[in-house]
């Protein structure tokens, strides 16, 4: 599914590396958690996978479904089945969730030269997913993410995830700023999407979300490098002892 080899990344106008040689292999149906202290490069990694233009790949390769995607645009990656749930979803004035997702689906259909959904067909799909997520239909009539609470924004990301139906979903700190109820709703949404065909990368600072979405693998990112990998027990260890223990082990 995803193969990242020796990935080194910097921002355009600064020579300091933010990602310093990441290797990661995600197979079909697997859930990987990427954990790490603040400033370790977790969110950068998520954004680089999705193709954010602010970053420059200095070295290394990203293969998605056996294609080298280093140079692909974010929209092309999306068409291939890659999805990023944002840590801070943008508020977009005058653009509604329905309208944006219809444009997304249309663009994908066009890319694969398939027949587009009619407005009616799409509305049916959309309404059923909104209902599944237990979202207030009034929110979907507003400008995207405008006046949404933190929890509503994250739910809206998961709504988009479920409609766009990707093969690889990257969740960038989706748990931050959520209360227990919202976290459970979001996790239920993600768990409902689990399948042998779909993989997840869950980027998080805390172990909490991993109680709800149980990962197959946990990786710890420090200073732009994966320094330790393990199973869900690693996350519990971090929860109990903090990142300090792992960092001090590195030093010794």
């Amino acid at each position: 599914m995803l193969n990242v080899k020796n990935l080194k990344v910097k921002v355009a106008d600064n020579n300091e590396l933010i990602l310093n040689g990441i290797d990661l292999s995600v197979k079909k149906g697997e859930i990987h958690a990427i954990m790490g202290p603040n400033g370790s490069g977790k969110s950068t990694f998520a954004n680089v996978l999705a193709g954010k233009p602010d970053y420059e790949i200095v070295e290394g390769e990203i293969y998605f479904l056996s294609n080298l995607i280093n140079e692909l645009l974010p929209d092309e990656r999306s068409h291939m089945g890659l999805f990023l749930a944002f840590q801070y979803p943008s508020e977009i004035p005058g653009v509604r969730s329905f309208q944006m997702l219809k444009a997304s689906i249309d663009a994908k259909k066009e890319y694969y030269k398939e027949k587009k959904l009619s407005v009616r067909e799409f509305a049916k799909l959309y309404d059923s997913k909104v209902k599944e997520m237990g979202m207030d239909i009034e929110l979907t009539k507003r400008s995207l993410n405008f006046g949404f609470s933190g929890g509503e924004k994250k739910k809206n990301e998961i709504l988009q995830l479920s409609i766009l139906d990707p093969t690889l979903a990257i969740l960038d700190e989706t748990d931050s700023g959520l209360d227990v109820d919202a976290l459970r709703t979001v996790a239920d949404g993600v768990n409902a999407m689990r399948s042998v065909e779909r993989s997840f990368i869950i980027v998080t600072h805390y172990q909490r979300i991993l109680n709800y979405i149980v990962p197959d693998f946990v990786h710890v990112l420090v200073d732009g490098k994966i320094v330790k990998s393990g199973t869900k027990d690693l996350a519990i260890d971090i929860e109990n002892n903090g990142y300090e223990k792992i960092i001090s082990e590195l030093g010794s």
Partner: protein
Amino acid sequence: MVSDIILNRFKNLYEPNSKFDKKIKEIKFDGWKNFNNHGLPPSDHTSELWKYTNFSKLYNSEFSKTSKKDLELEFTLFDKRKDWNTIYIVDGFYDEKKSIISNEIVLENALNLKNLKYLSNQFGSIAINSENEMIALNSSLMQDPILVSIRNSNKINNLQIIIVNSGENSQSSSFPRLFVEFSPNTKSNIVEMYVNFADNTNKNLTVPVIEYFLREKSEVSHKRIQIDQGNSYYFQFDRILQNEESRFKSTSFSFSGLLSRYDIHSDLHGINSDCSFHGLYITDKNQHQENEISTTHSVERCSSDQMFKGILAGKSRAIFSGKVLVKKNAQKTRAFQKDLNFLLSKAAEVDTKPSLEIYADDVECSHGATAGNIDKNMLFYLQSRGINKDQATSMLIRGFAQEIIEEFQDELLIEYLEKLLDEKIPNLDIEGIM
């Protein structure tokens, strides 16, 4: 000193012996006197009122007279609304044949005032000749002034005012002039639209002046659309006088021509009155659009708000000059001002100057202005959802405009404007920013 050459040029258009009503003839004469003293506005940035306007092109142009004509013009948009009162002013002349006026409103022209004779004292007192050169020019050269009174307070009165440049004469000039009275307790929808049929080679001059006189407790929802695909000079002045507890809510859309100015002012003259001016301007290529938006709080307990948005592409230039004057007695005033701009090309320029001039001490006022490019994070967000950069850019521009479009609260106009934006936005010249 006013240049003789310019005066002589406009002298050819001036008819001193018009058969207008006596009072209106006086306004005309007074306008000409003012114009003789001041001429066209200066082009050397010395006038604060016309600081950014390049009049030099206008100095070198010679404009021809128009005449009353019977033309078969297509107005598919407005012909759909047979149940609306509709005033067509074609090349400065009221087109009686085409216009639709129900017996619920009174319309008379200045040649033959009867029932509206009492309004001739108010005519020229809301848009004042001495205020600025172009209003004086309109008064001097107005071809066919129209007076209207809206009186039915039992239903919503709908009136469309369509200002047309037929494009029949090249370099033509027209000076539409209206005075509209709203009787106490009336509620009205006013649609003002400018339509230019002239082709790109035909540089005409249009200077409409409309005086709105709101009597106590009258409410006006004013929707204005200016679409100028041509290459013309357009200066529009809306002047409003508001009495006690009146409301004037205006939404405007300008897709400007070569040189155009939208100039609206309301004098909040009766307590508890309220006025809002919202608008959207879009400029492209070498277009120049000025928005002179001003409100005077003359008495206490009134509120006003100004909210304009600009989208600039190509080498175009726009100006937002918002003014709120709060006079000494106007306590408990609430006034808000905002101008937001989207700059889509490096060569485009906006000059935005919101200003508050406050002489009262118990007021609540705020103002602000911004100018920015496409937000990179928003763009990435849409792209990550599979929408390509061009389409995402169009969506962001369209979204920015949408807020104002929805304020039109008029299905036909919204549908028309949305279609227009869907056509125009992807074709704006936005090279060089990303």
